[in-house]
């Protein structure tokens, strides 16, 4: 059939391993990984998440965005012969031979409740909501646990000093996976503390730009009403013309 060789079919063919899984006959290299202690032979080069699926696990928990943004697939592992307990996001880490791994389906951690508009912009607010901040023993375990490679202990120290800017910048890439909090010997929930600090910083340091204020006023005062009357009821032909005539702002 002619359809057989269409571009779309060729593309689908080339994507097959991602969509419907790898055919065993196409696998050249294998590794053995231990999922919660059980040994599984899986293709080398998969992520931990893909390897677990290949082995037959179907995720309900511990899988979310599958792209390193959501923090759902926090994983801890040890490698045979290595004393170190390591952490990873399962969707962003290659499976390795001799990994003994388990996923963390849920990280318990109390979030303080607050009204961001009523909080005072000073270090007292952080301590009021998270007094355990003072328990930090600067052991750096949180930093070592962070799969985003953030300097978690540093931002906790900045929080203790009330340096909101430093906390905001250093913690910005946090995906709230919870690994820091689970490893912390002082029982801090670092990612919640950072969330409060960032919101405080955003709320009190990022002033509304003038141009935004002006635009809001213009909309409120009906500046575009006439334009809308023209645009919303315009024929497609007319809109096509207006579209073609747009000027492009210079770079």
């Amino acid at each position: 059939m002619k359809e057989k060789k269409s571009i779309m079919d060729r593309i689908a063919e080339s994507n097959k391993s991602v969509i419907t899984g790898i055919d065993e006959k196409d696998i050249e290299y294998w590794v053995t990984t231990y999922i919660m202690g059980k040994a599984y032979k899986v293709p080398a080069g998969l992520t931990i998440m893909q390897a677990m699926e290949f082995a037959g696990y179907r995720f309900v928990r511990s899988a979310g965005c599958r792209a390193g943004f959501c923090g759902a697939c926090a994983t801890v592992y040890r490698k045979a012969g290595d004393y170190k307990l390591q952490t990873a996001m399962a969707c962003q880490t290659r499976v390795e031979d001799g990994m003994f791994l388990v996923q963390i389906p849920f990280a318990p951690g109390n979030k303080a409740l607050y009204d961001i508009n009523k909080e005072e912009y000073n270090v007292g607010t952080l301590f009021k909501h998270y007094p355990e901040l003072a328990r930090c023993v600067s052991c750096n375990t949180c930093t070592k646990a962070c799969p985003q490679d953030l300097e978690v202990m540093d931002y906790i120290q900045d929080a203790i000093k009330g340096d909101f800017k430093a906390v905001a910048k250093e913690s910005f890439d946090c995906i709230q996976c919870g690994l820091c909090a689970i490893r912390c010997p002082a029982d801090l929930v670092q990612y919640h503390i950072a969330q409060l600090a960032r919101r405080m910083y955003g709320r009190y340091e990022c002033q509304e730009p003038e141009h935004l204020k002006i635009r809001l006023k213009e909309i409120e005062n009906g500046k575009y009403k006439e334009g809308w009357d023209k645009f919303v009821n315009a024929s497609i032909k007319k809109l096509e013309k207006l579209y073609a005539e747009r000027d492009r702002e210079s770079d």
Partner: protein
Amino acid sequence: MAEIKFIRGYPEYMHELINIVHKTRTKRKDYDPPAMSKEEREEVLKLHPDYAPGGKRKISIGQNKGDRGPNEVVDLLEAYPLIEEEEIDLSKIDYDVDILIIGGGLAGTSAAIWANSQGIPPEKILLTNKLRHGDANSMMAEGGTQAADRPNDSPLIHFLDAMGGGHFANKPDVLKALVEDAPLIMHWLLELGAMIDIEENKDFVEKWGGGTCRRRMHACRDYTGLEELRVIRDEFRDRKISCLEYYPVIELLTDGEGRAAGAVLWNFETGDYKIVKAKATILATGGFGRLHIRGFPTTNHYGATCDGVVLAYRVGAKLRDVDTVQYHPTGAAFPPQIIGLLLTEKLRSMGAQPINKDGEAFVFPLEPRDVEASSFIRECYIREKGILTPTGMRGVWLDTPLLELKNGEGTIENAFPGMNRMFKRFDIDMAKDPVLVFPTLHYQNGGVETDPEGKTNIGGLFVAGEISGGVHGKNRLMGNSTLDCMVFGRRSGIYAAEYAKAVKRRGKLSLEHMKKYVNMLKKAGIKPERRAPILLPEYRGKAVLARMIDVF
């Protein structure tokens, strides 16, 4: 593994091809191919998966009978429910609320906050999530949020950009709501404490997006959706609004007179169901990337399986533009662990060029997404100037070092920490070497038809975000999706609250619509082979699936 020699994360042969890109860079630095004319666009769009022959069929039952849609979507519309009417006891109500919100991404979470601000008490709102609260495509939005707030810009120009990008199929009144509320949403985000990128002089940093004629893209580094959603979710939690996780909806409920009246939830872990009675229901379930339409990989999160559209269609909601699928031009094509994942359009808006095997810039970097994606397909499959990967994929280079050259050293690390980190994990330094890209399934352009208030044709049923159809026409522009979620999350929250307050008489909960739908399926001769919503995609290994037995 040791058998293939890798240099800076690439197999040797790919590394050699990269050298061609390095050699031609200075020559290309100040030159982009010109934007295409309307005719050129039309020509190349013939290669787009939406317009290439095959892949679609007519929907045989329901509101949109006769309309065409992707086979993968029509399969789900022509599927049987997960439950039988007899096995569900509707007399015991587990949650009796004013507003039920299904889906906790940016749209659903925003809706809850605004409904609460309208005076609906937090315990009278219920947000239910299939996975965790926040496991959503919103969380992965990288590039930005559009808002026309600079002096040389206006909501009208934003409107025109989106209309043209959407092939003039957008619903004008809905699009007007989107662009006119955009500045208000930026104001709201600042008020909540979101850290939006600002210039030294305190103005917003605003960048280009594909298909726009003004710079109006607001970002939070390349973690825009992450920042927006985690701040909004934090606010949601502060308000103590009720929230369930790992409770997908498996069927909507009606009141016997065709109005939406709640839903049947299913506990993903224990397998039992719960009945929610609600005066108004907001569907904010997102899109369908995990259906892998036409065999494409996807940027979407694990749960993007079209559930909401299926559920809404069964109660009689009208769909529109479901035949159009957005393929993002720049999905990762290498390394194999991250195939299909998103490389934000912002890379191109800041100067990265698409480059073919011979080191040539072959397309204007910021065409609308469908045009840009089609030109990549042309380069790889017609002109044969793509780069073949070890897994058999073809792709073109995205010259990220050029971005670094244009904007100064360290730009990638500062402005694109997420992506930079992702490639570093696989030993690739995108500031030094280009990355390989190919179109990836990104967005459901259409969906359940909405109006400017988020209302559908079904009483009491609202939609917000990617599930909805109309605002983006047949192709969404960059930065209009997070905006869509927040604008129509807000609007659906406000109008659902208004609707709920006005509800006087509430009928008896019913699954009558489901019975009717099943009869339609039977009448159309559709065999009960498929069931929907599917809730999750199937990625388990074939060998294991072949030997699985059902014991308990």
